[in-house]
């Protein structure tokens, strides 16, 4: 079975802190994604990557950056966390058709 793991299920940070969310997949997938999920807004794509060191902006990249130094790992970085970045963050990986999602990280920024 494909497995996508995220470093934390719950995370609490303070405004202005630098936050790293890590995602690891074990199926050698080319594509990896970061979404955030908010009530009433569904899933919104922040960034995706289709190869090591390659990244593309999604719908809402402002305030975020990403890093993909190894194929299996895709990191989401909040350079200076703000309260409006409190959300559920979901990582996914895919090869061609189906996206496989991790369990999510619920981030609270105080």
């Amino acid at each position, binding site marked *: 079975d494909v497995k*996508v793991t995220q470093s934390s299920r719950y995370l609490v940070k303070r405004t202005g802190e630098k936050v790293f969310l890590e995602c690891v997949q074990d199926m050698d997938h*080319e*594509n990896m*994604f970061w*979404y955030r999920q908010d009530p*009433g*807004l*569904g*899933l*919104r*794509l922040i960034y*995706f990557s*289709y190869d090591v060191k390659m990244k*593309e902006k*999604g*719908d809402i990249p402002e305030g975020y950056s990403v890093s993909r130094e190894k194929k299996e790992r895709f990191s989401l970085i909040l350079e200076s966390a703000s309260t409006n970045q409190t959300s559920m963050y*979901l990582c*996914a990986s*895919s*090869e*061609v*058709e*189906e*996206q*496989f*999602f*991790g*369990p*999510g990280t619920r981030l609270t920024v105080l």
Partner: protein
Amino acid sequence: LAKTTQPISMDSYEGQEVNITCSHNNIATNDYITWYQQFPSQGPRFIIQGYKTKVTNEVASLFIPADRKSSTLSLPRVSLSDTAVYYCLVGDLPYYQKVTFGTGTKLQVIP
């Protein structure tokens, strides 16, 4: 970008067939339609995918009319465990550069 529109919520009794429709008027030629299911505190899970006409697998059917401006996910004989949020996704493969998730339809199955 192809924006999708789904009903916010639906109720159904156990054992009934449920049809959830997604509207995607601006779907592009290269776009596929994919449906995902999400339970609370979990990431979404793939259900079915199609490009045109009808696709069926062991859990659902997907109906896509000729103009592809909408699609309908059909769940046969739902059970309580089908209570979840269902998302309609429109995007081109394989890079999902223009992926768009709907806001999801919360399906409540009633005993």
